[in-house]
């Protein structure tokens, strides 16, 4: 019996190459788009703008004001390195922001805030390229921006998903502008279609975001309250795929202890955001046909 154990152990050891464990650790660590995105955040360059220009920037991103290259080319050019670093990062399929959920509500998610800024700079950069006749470059930027926006939500809570949704919507508006302005070639349209394709119908994984939102360890919850929270979490996830269950969820939230009600994002608002993104994606896919 002892001989059998020793032989088994030898066989087991010989089956596992000595360097495989190290190799397994190295691949995900190095091939992580989030690391490239952090490099891009570090490369972001600020510019001084007036209040009027700040309002105008938001209006441009909303699609309610035209982009004026004379005013914003400096900002766009200064951030070329940042957005290009981000674009290179989007070629990496794995994106792990490494949120330390063990910290519970104190877990830092500063990357979400920085992502919002970088994603918007990317849209301005695409406008800058369009205005200067570089349609290929603009399409590449927008396609990369879509992939980046999707990555922003990766492994995050509902908040990260809402920021990702906003960035996706901003990029889709910019695509519509490029289509309207530039008579994009079939190849350029195809590149945009290719970027939108992996997003599916909903664009983002809303259910997973909500699941993570409710899994964040909450201090000072007794067993009964924790159980109620788990039930609400399940119902919240269901509502995102079946909006008809919204009134029932709202009733559950209304009858939950105040301590819980203070923690739960408005499901109607989340549902509206999800639907809005799905609509915008559908319209853009139609335009790109």
């Amino acid at each position, binding site marked *: 019996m002892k001989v059998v154990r020793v032989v088994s152990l030898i066989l087991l050891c010989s089956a596992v190459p000595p360097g495989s464990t190290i190799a397994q650790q190295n691949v995900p660590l190095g091939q992580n788009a989030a690391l490239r995105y952090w490099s891009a*955040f570090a490369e*972001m*360059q*600020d*510019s*001084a*703008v*007036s*209040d009027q*220009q*700040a309002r105008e*920037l*938001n209006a441009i*991103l*909303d699609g309610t004001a035209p982009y004026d290259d004379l005013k914003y080319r400096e*900002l766009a050019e200064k951030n070329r390195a940042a957005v290009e670093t981000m674009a290179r990062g989007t070629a990496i399929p794995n994106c792990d922001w490494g*949120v330390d*959920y063990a*910290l*519970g*509500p*104190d*877990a*830092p*998610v*500063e990357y*979400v*805030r*920085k992502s*919002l*800024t970088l994603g*918007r*700079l990317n849209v*301005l950069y695409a406008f800058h390229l369009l205005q200067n006749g570089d349609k290929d470059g603009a399409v590449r930027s927008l396609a990369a921006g879509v992939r980046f926006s999707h990555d922003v939500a990766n492994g995050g*809570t*509902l*908040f990260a998903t*809402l*920021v990702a949704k*906003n960035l996706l*919507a901003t990029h889709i508006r910019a695509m519509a502008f490029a289509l309207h302005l530039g008579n994009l070639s079939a190849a350029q349209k195809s590149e945009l279609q290719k970027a939108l394709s992996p997003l599916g119908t909903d664009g983002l994984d809303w259910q997973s975001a909500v699941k993570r*939102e409710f899994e*964040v360890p909450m201090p000072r919850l007794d067993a009964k309250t924790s159980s109620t929270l788990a039930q609400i979490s399940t119902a919240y996830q269901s509502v995102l795929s079946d909006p008809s269950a919204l009134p029932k969820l709202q009733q559950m939230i209304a009858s939950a202890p105040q301590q819980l009600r*203070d*923690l*739960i*994002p*408005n499901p109607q*608002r989340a549902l*509206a*955001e999800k639907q809005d993104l799905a609509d915008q994606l559908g319209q853009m896919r139609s335009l790109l046909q």
Partner: protein
Amino acid sequence: MPILDDEQFERYLKEFRPVAPESLQIQEQPSPARPHFAYLAWAAACVALLLVFVLWHRPRPAQPPSAPQLAGSQSQSLTIGRANALLVHAPSLREAFNELSFQPQPASQPEGKKSALAALSKENFKL
């Protein structure tokens, strides 16, 4: 002195007259002659002090614009709890994201200007 009555004594006192004081005779002490180099050393020290003062307080040349206030250098960092509180309590998502805006440091931007990254970090969609 004989004993006088009051009137006699008064007359006697009135005979006295104030005497003008003589001028004070002070013999001037011959001061030791200071060596010439002491004056020079004192003057040099004064000039050195003056130079140090002037150099210390001279108007400095205009500083180049300070490092821009980059996104995320706000003192209060974003956490899951803070983000969640924004989502729950803000009247709209737009306001929730506006709460995330980066406030440029007063000295980092010229007067009447603000950070472009701050402007871009503000969520702006309508609900």
